[in-house]
Each structure stands twice: as structure tokens, then as C-alpha cells.
């Protein structure tokens, strides 16, 4: 589904990713772990299309399409969705507007008609229930005045409504207490499906107790230095990243 090959990325003249390769297949949940500054967030930002990241070498393909040639919105319409570590507050834009506009854009890209209002509301209400969010959230401006936990839940709500093919979740566990983490994890787990993949970018193993990954990658200094299964995350928890860095060096 996603093929990242020998990716080199420079930010303001500094090389952050130094030949990263990664393959994610449909139905899989991958966790990308690593110390601060390793380039974890850079990977998801480049895939989503954020400005300021220069790809100097390598490729990213998603279902055979060259991602780097696609507009930001085209990537999302194709099913590549990024959940932000720090969701942006958008004063004045109601959540309901965002959800409706986003869903319509995706459907239009697939040549489908707009979802009629009653069906749309039914869908949204069901997903709200799943995320234990009140309907009043929909009338509030996107993330404005939301607590950290509310923002993260809102990111997952968007995923549940938009049903991406590849959900990338950047540090979705940061700033969450244990109850909120469970709700967020339940939401993510409900996304698991045969035809969908999930990429979790995380610093801590804690999240992986709730969302058990099929594969764990360790990113150090712009390259994946080790790949394993869920057990690898536990090793990291016990021994830290230093041991890995040493063995990789």
C-alpha cells in the first residue's frame, strides 16, 4: 500500500531523513519509534505534504501513485490521512463544517454524490458515540479551547468519519491521561481492517499496550535501524534507545 524508498529529506538545509525505506501493506499496523529528533514526525509530515520539507532523494508511492506529485488535498482524498501531534485550532470553523466539507471532497474525488444530510448526521453521531464525545462538539470551532485530550479525540473522530486507507497518527498519545488514552486506542482499533493500514508514530511504548502493532520500526538519526514485532517495543521500553543506537553503529 505504502512504499517509501531511500527517502532523504532536508529541512532548512539540514538533512533529517537519510535514506529511510518502509513498506506498509493493507491490514497492517506499524509503529514507528525512536528518540526525539530522529525524524519520526518528519516522515508523516512529508507524506501529508507539509511545506518546508525538501525531498532530495528517494520516492513515496501510495497504491502505485507518486505521492510527492500529488497536492495535499489529493493525498487526503486518496485516503492518506494524518492525525496531528498538535492539532491546529481553527477559530470560527465549526467541526461539523470541517467534517462535511472533508467527506464531500473525498466522495467527489471518487465520483460519488454528497451524502444526504440525514445520513451524514447519523454517521457522525455514531462516531461521536464511539469517541465518547458530546454532540455539542460539532457546533464548536475546530479544536478551539479544546483540552489536549479533546483535540486528540477530535483527530480520531475525523479518521472515523473519513475512513482513510492509511491512517498516520503522530504522537497521538502525547498529553493523554489513561482514560483518554483508552478511548483514543479504542477508536484507532476500530479502524483496523483488511483493506486499511495504520502507522503509529510514538515515543513511548505505553500506547502499544492498547494498540498492538504488527510491526515495530526503530528510527535513529534519519534511518530505520531495526524492525521487529510488538516484542521489540517492549525491549525498547526496558533498555531504551541507546542500546539500539550502539548496535546499529
Amino acid at each position, binding site marked *: 500500500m505504502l512504499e517509501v524508498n531511500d527517502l532523504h529529506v532536508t529541512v532548512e538545509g539540514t538533512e533529517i531523513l537519510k535514506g529511510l525505506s518502509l513498506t506498509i501493506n493493507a491490514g497492517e499496523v506499524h509503529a514507528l519509534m525512536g528518540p526525539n529528533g530522529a525524524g519520526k514526525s518528519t516522515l508523516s509530515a512529508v507524506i501529508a505534504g507539509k511545506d518546508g520539507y525538501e525531498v532530495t532523494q528517494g520516492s513515496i508511492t501510495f497504491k502505485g501513485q507518486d505521492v510527492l506529485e500529488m*497536492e495535499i488535498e489529493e493525498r487526503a482524498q486518496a485516503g492518506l490521512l494524518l492525525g496531528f501531534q498538535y492539532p491546529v485550532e481553527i477559530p470560527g*470553523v465549526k467541526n461539523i463544517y470541517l467534517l*462535511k466539507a472533508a467527506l*464531500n*471532497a473525498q466522495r467527489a474525488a471518487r465520483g460519488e454524490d454528497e451524502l444526504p*444530510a440525514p445520513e451524514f448526521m447519523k454517521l457522525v453521531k455514531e462516531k461521536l458515540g464511539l469517541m465518547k464525545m458530546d454532540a455539542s462538539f460539532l*457546533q464548536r470551532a475546530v479544536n478551539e479551547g479544546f483540552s489536549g485530550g479533546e483535540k486528540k479525540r477530535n483527530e480520531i473522530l*475525523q479518521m472515523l468519519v473519513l475512513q482513510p486507507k492509511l491512517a498516520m497518527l503522530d504522537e497521538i498519545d502525547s498529553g493523554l491521561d489513561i482514560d483518554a488514552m483508552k478511548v483514543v486506542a479504542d477508536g484507532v482499533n476500530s479502524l483496523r481492517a483488511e483493506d486499511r493500514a495504520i502507522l503509529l508514530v510514538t515515543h513511548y511504548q505505553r500506547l502499544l499496550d492498547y494498540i498492538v502493532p504488527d510491526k515495530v520500526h526503530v528510527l535513529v538519526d534519519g534511518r530505520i535501524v531495526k524492525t521487529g514485532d510488538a516484542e521489540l517495543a517492549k525491549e525498547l521500553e526496558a533498555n531504551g534507545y541507546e542500546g539500539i543506537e550502539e548496535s546499529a553503529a
Partner: protein
Amino acid sequence: MSDTQTFLDTLNARSQQCEAEPTWIAARRQAGAARFEAIGFPTRRDEEWKYTDVRSIAQGNFALAESAEFSQAQAAALTLPLDAYRLTFVDGVFSSALSDLDALPDSVQVLPLSKALIDNHEAVGGPLGRLTSVDFSAFAALNTAFMEEGAVVRIAPGTVVEKPILLQFLSRAGTPVMSHPRILVEAGGRSEATLIEHYAGETDATNFTNVVAELMLDRGAILNHYKLQEAPLGDMHVASIHVEQSRDTRYSSYNLNLGGALVRNDLISDLNGQGAETNFLGLFFGQGRQHVDNHTKVNHNAPLTFSNENYKGILDDRAHGVFNGKVYVKRDSQKIEGFQSNQNLLLSDRAHIDAKPELEIYADDVKCSHGTTTGQLDEEAVYALRTRGIDEATARGLLTLAFAGEVLDQVALDAVAERVELAVAGKLPERFNLAGLVEAAVALND
């Protein structure tokens, strides 16, 4: 021939038809004409008109409309969909066919000026011109010289007017005409009412409207005043609104400007009694080569008076906006609060805003603040929306709508808020069906 002469000739031709009018009116007209002749149209050398060039009005040739013909169907398409007491003017001429004062209570008078003058002209003569003298501006002088139609609203003390009072001004396409409506509102003590001025018209109209409104609020009166200006894009629109507030009154102005080629609003509140409060909310949206100028002034003439102003401007293409807001605190008017904010959003590199907030304070125990910002859309937010699959144009449209939302959220009349929201959303691509969305949101609440 000078610019003023064209207007004076039109006036002279008209005056011969007005011989039967009361002498005080003839005298006011003459005073207006004399003042206008003496000062002529303002130029950009006048400080008050520094950013606004009125040559397109001064050099125009505007006739006076003779009839108020307008089809019911056309009017229905333009009118605000709300239950209101309604007076309609077509190119300044009163249309009784398009007006509706059914079930107006005895405690409220809503009259076309022409009728008020016939019924009891002395009652009009006293207040008319008390707030807006011919010295205020060339346009006020011109309005006075030409005044023959408009609206008189009188609300008896203690009356709560349940339905809004809607004054609807429609502009027709065809030979350019001018109109000089005069609005007089006397809100009795502890009365409460909503007044709407609505300007709209046929797309190809190129008329000149020059309105003067004088609003007098007696002790404890509450007046919500909407001015929805969505005149055709070829229209010229000049308005002077003066508000006199006595003790414990509350006046709220919602000044919403979407239309017109050249627009100038002067809004002035005199807070003359303790406890008087004035709220100025404004939104202007200019596209193409529209020029929209808002001049506001709050005069804190008494202690313990309050003002709160929030104007937001959105300018696209080569539109030019002006915001000049002044807060004046008279000597020893203590314990007053005056807040002012102006935010502008420029959607194109060639759009332009001149923003000038002014504070003039002659008392020491006051709380006053003002601020003005001008900027572009938040690119982080544009990016965040695009990562959800929303195309860039829609993302920018949504954020523009959100910017306007802060003012629209405070508009209590749904028909007005929705009209403006849809007008702003008009920039959004077709497939983002806002109307459907609003309905869905309402359904959710039920």
C-alpha cells in the same frame, strides 16, 4: 459646469413642484442647498475624506425617480424573509403596494416621510435636522436640500415592538437616479424595538443613494439597528447615521456592507446620559473594485457611559476599505468604558485597507482600548484543512467565513445572519453546499 451645478439644476427643477410645502421645509431645503453650493463635494484634501474619492458621484448625472414601479416577484426575490412591518422605497419613491403595516399597534407609528408631513408636519419639523445639521457634510446638506421622502418611526414610551420595522430601499436598473431618504426615529422611554434598513436592487443598477438617519433614544430605550447594505455593485451609497442616547439607553448597530461600488457610512453616537451604552458591530466585504469606507464616532459626553465596537473587513481583488473609528471622551466624563477593535483580512495582494483608530480622552478615570490588525489567512489552518481533503479554494472560503462569523454570531436576526453568511460563502465552490450544512446543523440541534 461645476460638479455642484448639475445637482443644483436638478434641485431647482424639482423645487417648482414643491411649492405647497410648509415654509419651514422650504427654508431647510434652501439652507441645505446654500450650504452644499458653498462647500461643494469633498475632495481628498479634506481630512474626513482623505481615503475616499467621491468624483464618481460628483461627476455623475442623476435624475430623480418619478415612480416606484417594481414587480412583486422582483421585490419578493430581494426582500428579507422575515415577518416585519415593512416600508418599501423604489429609487427613493415610496411604494405602498410593496409595503405592509398590518397589525401595527397604536403605540407605534411607521410612516413614509411624505405622509408624516401631510398628517402633522410640525411634529416632524422639531426633531428633523436636530442631530444632523446641514453643516455635517456636503452629503447631509444635499440630503436636506432634496428631502421629501423617507421614514418616520415613533415608538410610544414603554412599548416593546414585537416585530422588526423594516425599511427596504430598492434600486432599479436603467437611467441613473438619485435618492435622498431621510429617516427619523423617536424611541420613547423604556421602549424596545428592532429597526432594519435594507438596501438591495437589480444587478445592473447604477444609482446614487444618499441617506440621513437621525435616531433619538429617550431614557431607558433599547434600539437594535441593522443596516444591511447589499446594493447593486454599480450603486453609490452614502449614509449618515446620528444617534442620540439619553440616560440608560442601549443602542446596537449592526452595519453590514456587502454591496455598492462606492460606499461611505458615517455612524455617530452621542452618549449624553449616565448608563447609556452603544455597541457598534460592523462587517464589510469588498470585491472587484469596490470601495467601502466606514467612519464611526462615539462621543462619551456623560460619565458612566459605555461603548463597544468591533468592525471586521474582508477585501478581495482590488477592493479598498477604510475604517476610521473615533472614541471621544468629554472633559470630566469619568468612569467610562470604550473598547474598539478592527480586524481586516486581505484576500489578495492588491486589496487595500486604510485603518485609523483614534482615541481622544479628556478625563482620567476611563477604561479605553483600541486595536487594529490587518492580515492574511492563517496558512497553518489552510494546511490543516487541506490535509483533510478540502481543496485550497474551499479551505480559504471556510476560513473567510469563519472570520466573518465572529460578527455574524452576534446578529440575532437569523434572516439577516444567513443572508450575509451566504453572501460571504458565495466565494465557496459549488460543491460545498453551505445551505445543506446549516440545515443539517439545525436538524442536529432539534
